[in-house]
């Protein structure tokens, strides 16, 4: 279970706004999924070797490769400043954007 206050805390951590949303109903909804996920607590893993793995983490040489031009990276930005070969994203602050 999760309370409406708990849901607001979770939304804050998730960078989501719950303005205009029925908190109690959403808490019940999310709570039912959490309860479902909590079924993992009943699993008995006695006898399993939980440390063995057949997967090897592949490594690659630490070599500098050509990167994407800054101007290309900025193409999809809502607001950006470009100057010659450089440029940057613009983060909106209070009063800077309508």
């Amino acid at each position, binding site marked *: 279970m999760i309370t409406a206050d708990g849901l607001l805390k979770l939304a804050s951590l998730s960078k989501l706004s719950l*303005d205009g949303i029925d908190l109690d109903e959403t808490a019940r909804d999310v709570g039912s999924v959490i309860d479902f996920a909590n079924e993992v607590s009943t699993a008995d893993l006695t006898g399993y070797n939980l440390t063995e793995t057949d997967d090897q983490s592949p490594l690659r040489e630490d070599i500098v490769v050509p990167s994407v031009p800054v101007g*290309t990276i900025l193409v999809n930005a809502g607001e950006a400043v470009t100057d010659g070969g450089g440029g940057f994203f613009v983060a909106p602050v209070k009063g800077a954007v309508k």
Partner: protein
Amino acid sequence: MTSITQIHELLVSKKMSASELAEQYVSAAERDNPEMKAYITITRDAAMSAAREVDAKIARGAEIPPLAGVPFNMKDLVSTAGVRTTCASKMLEDYVPFYDAAVWEALQSQGAVMVGKGNMDEFAMGSTNKTSYFGAPLNPRGKSRVPGGSSGGVAAAVAGGTAVYGIGSDTGGSIRQPAAYCGVVGLKPTYGAVSRYGLIAFASSLDQIGPLTANVRDAAIVLDAISDKDSRDMTSRGTAKTADRLTGDVHGLRIGIAREFFENLPPEIEESVMASAKTLEKQGAVLADVSFPMVSYGLPTYYILACAEASSNLGRYDGLRFGHRAEEFRDLEDFICKTRSEGFGAEVKRRILLGTYVLSSGYYDAFYNKAQQLRRAISNDFEKLFGAVDCLLTPTTPSTALRFDAQLSPVEVYMTDICTVPINIAGVPAISFPCGFDADGLPIGAQLIGRKFDEQTILNAALAFENATAAEFLRPSNGGVSL
């Protein structure tokens, strides 16, 4: 349904040109899409241009690869430079990538003709396709039914005859479940068989790209074209080529039947899947009863791991670098929160919240850590089983295609993936193929699960079934192109 091999023969024998084919498929997609919604974006000009290049190659007398000139549908989470890639989300409604995914590079090198970008559940999160911001596609096998998800538009395009094959992605069943619902073949390759470079991420340790096709041989042909090692995705290793080694011979093949996958099934699904087992037995396979007790933990394990990764992966959508931006806000924090709340749909937000919950202090060990332990246990169980049998046969889904108006809770919808998620958790390959019909004439899918990087065995077994049944379960639907 028209196959890749049929198209290839038409082109090589010059009975049809690639341009004529492209025109037919693009026109059919444009005609059917207002109702069927299998596509989010139809790329007529690019398709016709690619087809003309194939025609020029044929005119020069050059050999063409198997996928040259073959029209297909690409799920709209595969990055395509210059073509918008939306993930079926308001968040990326106008996003146009500046680079191609590895899989699109591979297909372009063959001369593939992309009809358009396929509809899907938003950010690949869903089992019905109802979460698409652009509206849900209809199932060509019954328009009151969902096509499944998340690659529902792709499956619907193949079943509906507006694409010869499709490229989907599968995080917990998103290729196999819609393939089963729409009566086509769907292959989830081994994790690492296909590069994920350029695939917009949902849950990176589970996501894998694969084909949806009209038959088993086509799935092998597409897999061969897209599977490769790619230094831009360090998990990719490629997998052995399969199409030329397809035999359809299952003599001596040991097929495990795990009863746990058959619990609480409608009788007609159990009967169809068991009948397919018997068909394979008649072809020389050996059936063996085996046990997979961890099946019931697959879904909760999957939702913890997938949502945890999604909450992290989707953190990048802040409105600053790409995607939707809120217009009204108080400060930067409010801007980011409102951007995300406006841009994401309800299911995506639900999963981000769950992912944040299981990763948060106080719950991490009980949820995320336990799920990681279960992932290892489920993988160990598969490895143990594959010491005794060569593959497993299960149903793909516990139901046929759901009705659009079915009133189900989120957890009830998640249950449609109960047979498919353990495969992603373990990273093994699996194929869904049509094996029957229910009383309403809706397709039933069976699933073959194999060892890591052994797609050959499950493709062979599925082909053996297809050959033995004279492909009677691979039926065309109304609409689309009829050659």
